[in-house]
């Protein structure tokens, strides 16, 4: 355990080194929220309801997303693809440390930092824009919420590793794969941009079988107290299913990938 604590600490320090980089990343997050904010306020200028949401509900959703995405969608494991490509993976392979735990620990350190900043950003925006932020105080929602968050973090971790490992077979795909996966599919299907229940029913049914909605939409819905206990438990079961399935797939592909790894760069 101590080795992972040590790793967490040094990883956390490393995050601080590129201050400008980090600040820009946070600025991007804030801008995204602002875009969503202005988009929706414009749509609601006439008042009333759109897709069954009124203005306050939708804004509550969007600000809930800000916190959840800082926790779930921030990742250090995206660097694995670059490591495979450059041969730097060699260095972690030589260490008596579990590869997956190594990267999960590094993910946690970046998540901790992101959460810290997201907290103040949200506070700031909520105060400035006078958004009705929803504070969930009911423990029977908060408990499954935190549980679903942990599972969401694991799902995202394994998805990122899966995309990283494409690099074993197609080093030139590294950037494109990550972009398509992270910037397009995940953003769209996870509910990070809009609540998924505004989509047509048929489409929703399909999407709920995929791992993506469980990254953002599902935890936020629990937090906002919108799901009945049955649906919450059902969703958590699906999350659990994905965590197990993805971990098995990742493990399998990891072993195959290592056989192909050529430890390049001398």
């Amino acid at each position, binding site marked *: 355990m*101590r*080795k992972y604590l*040590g790793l967490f600490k*040094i990883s956390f320090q490393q995050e601080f*080194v590129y201050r400008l980089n980090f600040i820009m990343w946070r600025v991007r997050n804030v801008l995204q929220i602002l875009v969503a904010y202005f988009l929706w306020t414009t749509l609601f200028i006439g008042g009333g309801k759109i897709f069954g949401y009124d203005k306050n509900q939708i804004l509550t959703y969007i600000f809930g997303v800000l916190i959840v995405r800082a926790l779930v969608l921030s990742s250090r494991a995206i660097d694995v693809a670059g490591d495979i490509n450059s041969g730097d993976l060699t260095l972690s392979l030589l260490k008596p440390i579990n590869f997956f735990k190594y990267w999960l620990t590094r993910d946690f350190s970046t998540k901790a930092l992101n959460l810290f900043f997201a907290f103040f950003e949200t506070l700031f925006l909520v105060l400035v824009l006078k958004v009705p932020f929803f504070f969930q105080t009911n423990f029977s929602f908060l408990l499954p919420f935190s549980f679903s968050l942990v599972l969401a973090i694991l799902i995202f971790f394994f998805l990122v590793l899966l995309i990283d490992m494409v690099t074993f077979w197609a080093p030139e795909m590294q950037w494109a794969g990550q972009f398509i996966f992270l910037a397009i599919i995940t953003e769209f299907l996870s509910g990070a941009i809009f609540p998924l229940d505004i989509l047509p029913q048929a489409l929703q049914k399909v999407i709920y079988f995929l791992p993506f909605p469980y990254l953002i939409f599902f935890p936020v819905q629990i937090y906002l107290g919108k799901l009945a206990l049955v649906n919450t438990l059902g969703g958590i079961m699906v999350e659990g299913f994905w965590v197990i399935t993805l971990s098995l797939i990742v493990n399998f592909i990891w072993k195959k990938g290592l056989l192909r*790894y050529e430890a390049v*760069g*001398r």
Partner: protein
Amino acid sequence: MDRTIIVDHLVKNFEVKEKEPGITGSLKSFLSPKKKIVRALRNISFTIQPGELVGFIGPNGAGKTTTLKVLSGLLYPTAGFAQVVGFDPWEKKAEFLKQISLVMGQKNQLWWDLPALETFELLKAIYEIPQKEYEESLKELVELLDLKNLLTTQVRKLSLGQRMRLELVAALLHRPKILFLDEPTLGLDLIAQQRMRDFIYDYNRKTQATILLTSHNMNDLVDLARRVIVIDEGQLIFDGAFEELTNRFAKEKIIKLSFSQEADLKELEKIGRVKKISFPEVVLSVPRTTTSVAAAEILQNFPIADLTIEEIPIEEIVRKVFRRELKIKR
């Protein structure tokens, strides 16, 4: 007998995609990739005993680094067998990894943006080194490599030589029994090279660690390795004491002459190849087997003040190996 490293009929092939230049080439290789098999190691066998310091010699692409990578568990052998301190390297067991270290001249494990001390602390945790042992090792290594004031400086601000020495500390903190050094003096200036060599030599003597070292730097090999393994094109062509390289590969000997008066040097050409003339000194190379006959003939027919017979310098042999001038005789 005790053996730390066993390599038996080791084969490693790589699959390489071939691509013609230009956009059409890219398109072609995308639609129907042409693959080529590169045979990096073809049937290599050797064993190494505990405490040995062995030099790996061979030109670029001979398979030296590939061998080290197989031995440290990074590459999966296509065929054959490798064992290090009783483990199959590929399994990457923690108990195995704690006993080895691989230092590559071009790969840095120090965290670039943080002082080296931070990386050392992390390594202490990762290798589960007891605090007392860690402090002792660190103190000793820092003193030996003269690094006292550099531990708290951001790694990116250091010179290459300073960084390489710190890399070495990082690689040795857990006191590995086996040390693989891949081009440890690459890019270092002469003084830094010498320092590195002295350290490696001392380290081997003091800790009885087994060291396998590859280098293009002649001095590294001459100074350090008592035993050398020469590989070329994935095949082992020599394994033995450094001095024996000469007996094995030098087909000629050198005769140095000092003339007492003018003589017809053309006549010398019949006896051997004239390598250098700066009268009255002449250097001649003659076939090994007929050296004494040649010497006698010269003494009889020429006005000679002094004659010495020498071996071809080891550096020249190694250089020839690098230039692939020596062909494999099996």
